[in-house]
């Protein structure tokens, strides 16, 4: 049985102009110890998925449907008290802008004490021992536990937050853009750390990021999101080497690559649709250079391309041709003119 099974999850936001369909029916499964990368541009709903799973949502957000089956139980039906019980213990979150997530007026150790005593039911003495252990685990000096957050550098705060997330040996960690604001060298250290700890403790990991190369290095499976829907999912090799959706192909074109400098960058023209009134049919159709009539009328569903590799595109049978064409710049520049 998979550790996490998400079925047709829908998370909407109420707003003045109407209901924003931020996450509109996505499904995926995650085995224990597996790592999944959720990729997409900002506003595509990837953070909303994370917050929907762990149910730390904004006031105006609500789960409109679907199931989040974690360890055999559906979290969607859980009361606030019950879900609070499993946060930190079974599933924890490394929030976006983790650097600003430590309370600036308390020493770092207080954050550990709070979780370990309240959630882990430890006494202060063993909590302190555990905090020291965790600091060593993420490569920080335990002597600095009593420092205030402002005395830490960005990378150190990030490590402290990762240590916090691991404090009670959760089964699943959701990391929302864990390295976005960090410098490359620190980013490399943090990613290595996350990967090492994930493999050591067999924790499942959901990594949310807009950077394809980050997930290429850390995740087993990749799911690509666009405008609240999953457009493609599969193993890292499937997605990055044999992408089968025009959006994924476009995303790969738009990335500068240090190792392949002669590649010219190609942008995806246009912008994502308004999610208050999402368009009928495929949501990528307005920007897609390969659209056909069907794309604007019917909604594509995820279909299997090869074992474990799914893509939501009507033209899957021509995918070889599309892949070929997507490499050419003129394909993308003429799409919308």
């Amino acid at each position, binding site marked *: 049985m998979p550790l996490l099974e998400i079925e047709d999850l829908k998370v909407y936001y109420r707003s003045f102009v109407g209901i924003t369909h931020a996450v509109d029916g996505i499904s995926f499964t995650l085995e224990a110890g597996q790592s999944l990368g959720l990729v997409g541009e900002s506003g595509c709903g990837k953070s909303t998925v994370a917050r929907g799973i762990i149910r730390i949502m904004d006031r105006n957000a609500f789960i409109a449907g679907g199931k989040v089956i974690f360890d055999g139980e559906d979290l969607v039906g859980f009361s606030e008290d019950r879900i609070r019980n499993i946060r930190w213990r079974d599933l924890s979150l490394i929030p976006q802008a983790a650097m600003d997530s430590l309370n600036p007026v308390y020493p770092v150790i207080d954050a550990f004490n709070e979780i370990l005593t309240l959630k882990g039911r430890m006494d202060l003495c063993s909590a302190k021992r555990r905090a020291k252990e965790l600091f060593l685990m993420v490569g920080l000096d335990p002597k600095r536990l009593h420092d205030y957050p402002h005395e830490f550098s960005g990378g150190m705060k990030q490590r402290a937050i990762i240590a916090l997330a691991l404090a009670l040996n959760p089964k699943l960690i959701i990391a929302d853009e864990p390295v976005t604001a960090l410098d490359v060298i620190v980013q490399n250290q943090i990613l290595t750390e996350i990967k090492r700890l994930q493999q050591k403790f067999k924790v499942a990991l959901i990594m949310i990021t807009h950077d394809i190369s980050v997930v290429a290095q850390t995740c087993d499976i990749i799911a690509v999101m666009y405008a609240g829907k999953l457009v493609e999912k599969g193993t890292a090799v499937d997605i990055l080497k044999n992408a089968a959706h025009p959006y994924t192909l476009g*995303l790969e074109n738009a990335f*500068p690559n*240090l190792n392949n400098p002669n590649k010219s960058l190609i942008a995806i023209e246009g912008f994502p649709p308004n999610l208050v009134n999402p368009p009928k049919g495929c949501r990528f159709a307005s920007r897609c250079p390969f659209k056909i009539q069907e794309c604007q009328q019917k909604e594509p569903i995820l279909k299997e391309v090869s074992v474990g590799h799914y893509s939501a595109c009507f033209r899957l049978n021509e995918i070889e041709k599309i892949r070929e064409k997507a490499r050419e710049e003129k394909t993308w520049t003429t799409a919308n003119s």
Partner: protein
Amino acid sequence: MDNSQFLIQVKGLKKHFTISHNLFRQSSKKGNILKAVDGVSFKIARGNSLGLAGESGCGKTTTGKMLLKLYEPTEGTYFFNDIDMTHTYDRKVIKSFRKQAQLMFQNPFEAINPRFTIGRTLMEPLIIQHNGSGKEKEDLVKHILSKVNLQPAKNYLEKYPHQLSGGQLQRVVLARALITKPIFLVADEPVSMLDVSIRASVLNLMKRISNEMELTTVYISHDLALIRYMCHGIAIMYLGKIVEKGLTKEVIKNPCHPYTQALIAAVPNSDPEIKNEEVKIKNYVPSPINLPPGCIFQNRCPIATEICFKVEPKMKKINENHWLACHIN
């Protein structure tokens, strides 16, 4: 070599800030000195571009600001177009310099006055520079808008910043920088606030326009892949000093300084079958206040020897297109 082939010539440029713990006195005698930029030298030929790379806090933005005379350097000389700009206070010279050198900001959402229409925003530099009659100014604004691919221009003139997307706004920022027909542009992290799918279009646009206008550009970025894509030359900065510089191709292909090697090894590889190695350097960037003698990289360097803790390495030439400041390599 004929000097005038270089638009920018910088020698031993330094910027030191005095840090005082006294809130009410600007510079007490006991104040510590923060060496934000500590002796950088480089030249940029006309029409070429230089990428300043390095981690945050290494002084790349301070260098950029000195190139635009937004900071007065503490020491060193700066020649722009063969004019000594280091200590010029001649208002005429400065005014023409302001017209020729422009800055492109990092965050387009904050760089534009939210109460000005796009037309007014672009008009502003022309008003300050007294550039032509009203009609001419308007034509220039329309021309520049179509040049940055905001077409048709008249649709954008009356719009307010909040009505545009991040990518469109960054084009407006670029247009505003280009409207005075500068010959020198500093772009401070031009796309780091933009979405991945539209980054490429802004970068390609900047590349095309700087070719067309024969702009000399400085890109400030921590993203080596971006600099590799955009720039002829690269200078790797660490704690206020340039540790390695040269042609971008050459430096990225054959990095010699241990810091550059680490930076390049740390860039995640987008091929899932090739796994990144763990970067060898440890520790964190030390505080730039009161640094020890010797090489600035000494406490993190995996190959440091005795001499590195005593003598500061000088910039030396490895070959025609490659300079390095390291004792070992």
